[in-house]
């Protein structure tokens, strides 16, 4: 290492000097490399995060593959003798029973004849005969297979024309259980020979008479995979191995098998973003309900409720934060003078210091119950505010001249805060009185009776709490932009006789508008990614609506409460990575937009400044 510049009197000899110069040059180069590397590492970090998340997600969407393999040991024999059919049921059906399925929880029995005619019989009401008669085929074709899917909540039927249909047990309007036709699956080319349900999840394999084998999943009508081979024609039965990794084709000849790579059948773009009719549900819905550690259970992963939840929370938060932040910045930057101005701005920026976990805690234990009780007071307060503004604007100019000097001096803020406090108190009193008088003590239950669903932990609570967290960001950027408007412009306008308000309105505001936009985008990015407030202040119920008074479940909260439980490499784990990517993309868009606007703004100011 070089030790500073040596005194002139002891200049090194030529060669030594040359070496020293060389050394310095190398050092210089090393530094610049290192520093460029550090600069590049930022891009690398961002890219690295994205790419890593992506690598964890891509296996979800890998197409299913299947390879024929040699069967090493024959599959365990499995019992296919159907349960004996009670005589009462057989007589009630009145046809020759070819297929029968037992509903395990209540003991319903579904009997079907080979022409597709079917009868639903209940062991608790044997005398009632067939509770429901229906045809499982079009009557022109024969029913060839009838099977439960894993979990015994839905039935798949196959017929001689290659049709596959899914049926659920659903209660009708009287609560009576009925077999309901749900949907057809993509039609096979030949008669269905056998259907094999997967173990523990709702997939199934289908064998048809032409030697076609196809893999389906209950949520999707199209097959995940299909293949055809002459040797499959010999098979009469299909069976999955324990972990659904192998599919055995059994028949009179040598058994053949397929090695399957089908790890995440329950996830596809369709199930993520469209309504899915899950087993046992009355209609197709957007559902997020992770398996939560239960057997025979498929996770239901629809990103729609989470996305809506995130957007809903962000929307209401912005509704609070944007007007407050911009107006407060406008006032602070344009109407206050130093040192009050910078003091107030610093004070408001202090708000950013509140860790969101504290805000979330307060929202959950204090704000949510308080709002439930004093909702009417809040509405009243919002109603009184414009009146207050109106009154101030009208009355102030009539006050004595000396008093009018108060605005901008700092005292006005104190005065206004006191006024606001009084207004809030009045609203509280008035709201509670009104509630007692007209809403039988509780406005919130009154709302319920009007058909407005109200949950205690709702988007309003989140909006207020998160708005509070986002506010300082919006404020500080707006404030910076507004106070950076080139002085000669405002001075010039002033010289031309513009009033103060005209300057604000015509010069400062239009110039800082892009900055305000950037502030809003950044605030939005923050609101989309906020975790603790939403996690603690909402009920995390995955509801897909924009009702202000109902709860929500956000992408971020879902990650926080579900990732620690997810087994590495399971569908659930990868789904959560997909959630993270979605968040990443949302915030990336918001931030990039804000960045572009800000860079343009910077150039504009530079141009105006010179």
């Amino acid at each position, binding site marked *: 290492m070089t030790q500073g510049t040596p005194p002139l009197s002891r200049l090194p000899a030529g060669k030594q000097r040359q070496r020293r110069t060389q050394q*310095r040059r190398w050092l210089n180069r090393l530094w610049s490399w290192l520093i460029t590397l550090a600069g590049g590492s930022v891009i690398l970090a961002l890219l690295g995060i994205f790419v890593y998340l992506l690598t964890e997600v891509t296996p979800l969407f890998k197409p299913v593959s299947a390879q024929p393999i040699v069967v090493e040991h024959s599959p365990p024999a499995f019992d296919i003798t159907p349960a004996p059919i009670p005589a009462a049921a057989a007589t009630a059906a009145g046809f020759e029973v070819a297929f029968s399925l037992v509903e395990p929880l209540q003991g319903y029995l579904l009997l079907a004849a080979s022409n597709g005619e079917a009868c639903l019989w209940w062991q608790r009401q044997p005398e009632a005969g067939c509770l429901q008669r229906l045809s499982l085929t079009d009557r022109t074709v024969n029913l060839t297979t009838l099977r439960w899917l894993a979990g015994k909540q839905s039935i798949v039927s196959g017929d001689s024309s290659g049709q596959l249909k899914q049926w659920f047990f659903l209660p009708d309007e009287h609560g009576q259980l009925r077999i309901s036709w749900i949907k057809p699956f993509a039609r096979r080319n030949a008669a269905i020979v056998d259907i094999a349900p997967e173990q523990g999840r709702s997939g199934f394999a289908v064998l048809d008479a032409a030697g076609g084998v196809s893999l389906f999943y209950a949520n999707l009508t199209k097959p995940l995979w299909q293949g055809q081979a002459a040797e499959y024609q010999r098979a009469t039965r299909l069976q999955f191995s324990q972990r659904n990794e192998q599919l055995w084709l059994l028949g009179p000849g040598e058994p053949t098998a397929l090695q399957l790579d089908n790890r995440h059948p329950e996830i596809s773009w369709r199930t993520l973003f469209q309504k899915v009719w899950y087993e046992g549900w009355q209609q197709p819905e957007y559902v997020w309900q992770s398996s939560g550690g239960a057997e025979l259970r498929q996770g239901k992963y629809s990103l729609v409720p989470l996305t809506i939840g995130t957007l809903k929370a962000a929307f209401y938060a912005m509704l609070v934060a944007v007007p407050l932040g911009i107006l407060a910045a406008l*006032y602070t930057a344009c109407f206050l003078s130093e040192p009050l101005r910078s003091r107030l701005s610093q004070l408001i920026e202090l708000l950013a210091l509140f860790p969101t976990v504290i805000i979330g805690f307060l929202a959950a234990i204090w704000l949510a119950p308080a709002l439930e009780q004093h909702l009417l007071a809040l509405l009243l307060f919002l109603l009184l505010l414009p009146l207050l503004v109106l009154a101030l604007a009208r009355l102030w100019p009539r006050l004595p001249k000396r008093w009018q000097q108060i605005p901008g001096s700092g005292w006005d803020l104190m005065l206004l805060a006191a006024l606001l406090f009084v207004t809030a108190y009045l609203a509280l009193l008035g709201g509670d009185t009104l509630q007692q008088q007209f809403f039988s003590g509780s406005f919130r239950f009154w709302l319920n009776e009007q058909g407005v669903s109200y949950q205690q932990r709702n988007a309003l609570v989140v909006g207020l709490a998160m708005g509070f967290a986002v506010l300082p960001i919006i404020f500080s950027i707006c404030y910076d932009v507004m106070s950076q408007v080139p002085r000669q412009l405002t001075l010039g306008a002033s010289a031309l006789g513009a009033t103060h308000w005209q300057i604000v309105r015509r010069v400062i505001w239009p110039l800082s508008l892009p900055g305000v936009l950037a502030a809003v985008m950044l605030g939005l990015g923050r609101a989309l990614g906020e975790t603790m407030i939403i996690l603690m202040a909402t009920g995390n119920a995955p509801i897909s609506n924009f009702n202000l008074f109902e709860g929500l479940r956000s992408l971020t909260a879902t990650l926080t409460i579900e990732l620690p439980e997810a087994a590495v490499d399971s569908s659930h784990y990868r789904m959560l990575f997909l959630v993270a990517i979605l968040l990443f993309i949302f915030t990336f868009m918001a931030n990039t937009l804000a960045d572009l606007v800000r860079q343009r703004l910077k150039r504009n100011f530079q141009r105006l400044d010179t």
Partner: protein
Amino acid sequence: MTPDYHQRNYWFWLAALASAFVLMLLLALSYLMLSRGLGLFWPADIVQFRVSQNAESPHEASLVLGEVVSQQQLTAPQLAAAGLTFSAPATRILVKQGYQPSGAPAFRWYWQQQLSDVQRPPEVLLVRHRQFGELYGWPQAMSEGQLLLQLANGQQLRLQQADIMLQLAPNSLSWLQKMRWFAGQWWSFLSTEPREANSAGGILPAITGTLLSVLLMAVVVAPIGIMAGIYLHEYARDGRLVRLVRLSVHNLAGVPSVVFGVFGLGFFVYVLGGSIDQLFYPERLPQPTFGTPGLIWVSLTLALLTLPVVIVATEEGLARIPSSLRLGGYALGATKAEVLRKLILPAARPAMLTGIILAVSRAAGEVAPLIFVGVVKYAPVLPLSSSAPYIQLDQQIMSLGFQIYDVGLQSSNADAAEPRVFAIALVLLVLIGVLNLLAMRLRRYYRRRVV
């Protein structure tokens, strides 16, 4: 410009009201945190009263001893809905009764209408016992390291002096004595480890965990962040790459912190930690050493999270250094690296320090990403040791932010835990506030000096 205040309109007043509103919110929040946070350790009076479920027979009234924690007023419709016949408005009070040998809960609501004979007897003791927690009662006898305490239900408990952590007669204390007790309680809160599932005791491990993780983070983030800041301001020419770097910085600042947590768990813990284990600790597998959440991963995740803060602060600091300084250096024949090291960096040092402090204060309040990478409910052993390497990088830690979340939502003794949350939150706020004040001071100092 001279403001012209004669012309005003609605927008002006709206803006003024908005500022006042934000100010009011800030004050209200600060007041709430201070009063609730500090109030936890102020010795409250112990109240004694009789409760009769049945107004006709006052002798059946049972005696209750405890602190009044909060109260609630019910209106006539609320009372009617609850099936109660009190005249409205009726008030009920939440009383902290302490340990009940019968197994009854420590907190209970009582109707004001059912109370009689309310007193504040001066001799009543509050005893904090190692096993039972807090007890209220009358001291009967004290002998040979034993205390005979009579509880409100008449039962007498013989307590070993060794098991008694604290005892106090709050009703007979003077203001000064209360003050001293208050200070002592705060001290023990800050300097001991938690007890009874985080619902009692102190928060020392959480404070140390927070501090250690952010310090370690600072060590990681400082060189990279500062160098990246230097790159942006000194080395990069205006071009596509710089714009890309800048965009990345802004985006990194905007990525939700929980996504960093996901990345931390997946990449740091499972991939990086797993590889370290395979390379350096194969003998301990399958018991992982670094392939599990721990202090180091907390710090790395936080470092990633706060990188943009340091970069932006460094860049800002460099921008304030007059270019004459640089030009002078070059004129004397110094290389770029030399100018940087000898002239610019010393001048920009306070700015970088500010950046690091801001990063630390941002990191101290984070919770969501840390849940995945190594912050736990309870890890009382500090990740420090007296022998090399002094810090156990693979150990799991506690943190203040996570304590708020955990004690607030998951502590089973919710009535007792809630005031603690405010105290922990206050500690965290003070920590962050002090750091920020420091940063603010520093910034003002060097601004004055450089300009």
